[in-house]
Structures are given as C-alpha cells and as structure tokens.
C-alpha cells in the first residue's frame, strides 16, 4: 500500500522517486538536504532508504568474480586473435 505521509515538505512518494539520485548525490544541494531531512524524520522511509543503500552497496563490494573456465576461454581468445592479427 502506497505511503502518503508528508515530512519536511516532501511526500514519501517523492522520496521514493528521488532515492537513487539522492544516493548518487545527483540532486541540488537544497533538494539533497530536503530528502535528508525527510529520511531523518520519517521512520518508514529511513528504514527503506537504509535497506536500499545496503542492497546497492552489496553490488559494488569486493572484487567481482570471474565466472566460468576463464583461463581456457582466454587461451582460445588468444588463438583466435593471433590468426586475425597475423592476417590484417
């Protein structure tokens, strides 16, 4: 069910819409401060904002793994490229 509270001059739906821009620091300084004030005083949005941030940070964390039989794949790439590099 959609949340319709208004806190710090912003409705929850507006905060939901701007959450990624807020996380990326893409809002104007005034808007950034307004969203921060809403998050501070609205427990529902604060809880969701924290969970959202944790989830997105989990994507960015650590060295990404290299899936599959990567060395074999790279060896075949080198063989294929070697043929092309010689023929250009």
């Amino acid at each position, binding site marked *: 069910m959609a949340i319709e509270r208004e806190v710090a001059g912003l409705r929850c739906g507006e905060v939901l819409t701007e959450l990624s821009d807020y996380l990326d620091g893409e809002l104007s300084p005034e808007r950034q401060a307004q969203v921060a004030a809403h998050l501070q005083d609205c427990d529902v949005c604060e*809880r*969701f904002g924290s*969970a959202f941030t944790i989830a997105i940070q989990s*994507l960015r964390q650590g060295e990404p793994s290299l899936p599959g039989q990567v060395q074999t*794949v*790279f060896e075949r790439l080198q063989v294929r*490229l070697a043929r092309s590099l010689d023929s250009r």
Partner: protein
Amino acid sequence: MIEDLELLSQTVCGDAGAFEVLVLRHRETVWRFARSLTRDEAAAEDALQETFLLAWRNAASFRGEGSALGWLLSIARHAVYQQHRGRAGEPERLESLAELGEAAGWGADPDPLDALVVKDEVERAVARLSLEERELLLLREVEGLSNEECAGLLGVGLPALKSRLHRARLRFVAHLRGERHGH
C-alpha cells in the same frame, strides 16, 4: 603504463603488440560483462571473441568519445544483443514506481534487508533481472561507469538512464527480498 587511447592509436597503425596489451587489460571485464548478460558460457565466449576481433578490425572507428573500455563494452553489448535478436519474449508490464517500491520493501515492517547481504543472494537476485536491467546494474554498480558513460553506451539520454537505473535498482532489491523470503 601506456594509456588506452595511445594503445588504440597504435592499433589503428597496425601495431598488434599494442592491441594485445589492450586485450590483456580488458578481457576480464569484457568476459564478466558478457557472461553476466548472457548467463551462458558458450554465448559469452562468442561475444568475447567477437568483441576483440571487431575492435581489432575497426579500431579506427573509435572516435575518442568516452573510454576505450566503454567502447569495448558497447561492442560486447551489441554482440550479445545480436545473439538474442528474435528471442525476446513479451515486453514486461511497466509497474508504477510505488508498486516497484512496495515489492522492494518500501513500507514493509520490519525490513529483512537490515541484515548483511551475502554474495550468493546478490548473484541470484541479479540473475533474475531482465537483460536490460542486468546490463545497466553491471555497468553502473559493478564496473563503476558513470551515469553519463552508461547513457552514452546504451544510447539513451541522461534522464532516461537515471529513470531506468532507479527502476533496475528497485527491481534488484525486490528480488533480493524474494531470495530472503524464498520466492
């Protein structure tokens, strides 16, 4: 270390050694991107080979706008989409942001994502995204490209890119919650 753009300039002049350095530098990223997009080892390998073969043949077409890695990823993306052409399913219904938010836990009490998110859950949640959502999150969150670079690579304007990114993030969080709840 020689810059990518210098290596590409040398590649245009036929310097195979310079191109090999570029391949060694970026093959892991291109592989990871292709593998995550296709979720298929053989298809990803085809895309990887296609990417570097085309880059070698068409190095002169690089216009110097954006990074060499962005250019390579755009070739890889094109190769993957060529493979998927004609295989697209029904277009997904575009939910409202509120619907997506609720699926992601907006308004839920208590939210189960307060606990630490584990890597396996992240990988399963990413795998459940659509091809378009997956590629955007890979480029932006995993490979660390800027919004502007992603917009250029995907051929969309910045506002559209931001909108897609937000929706993809919400969908990812929704899938992550689904993993926690076992559905």
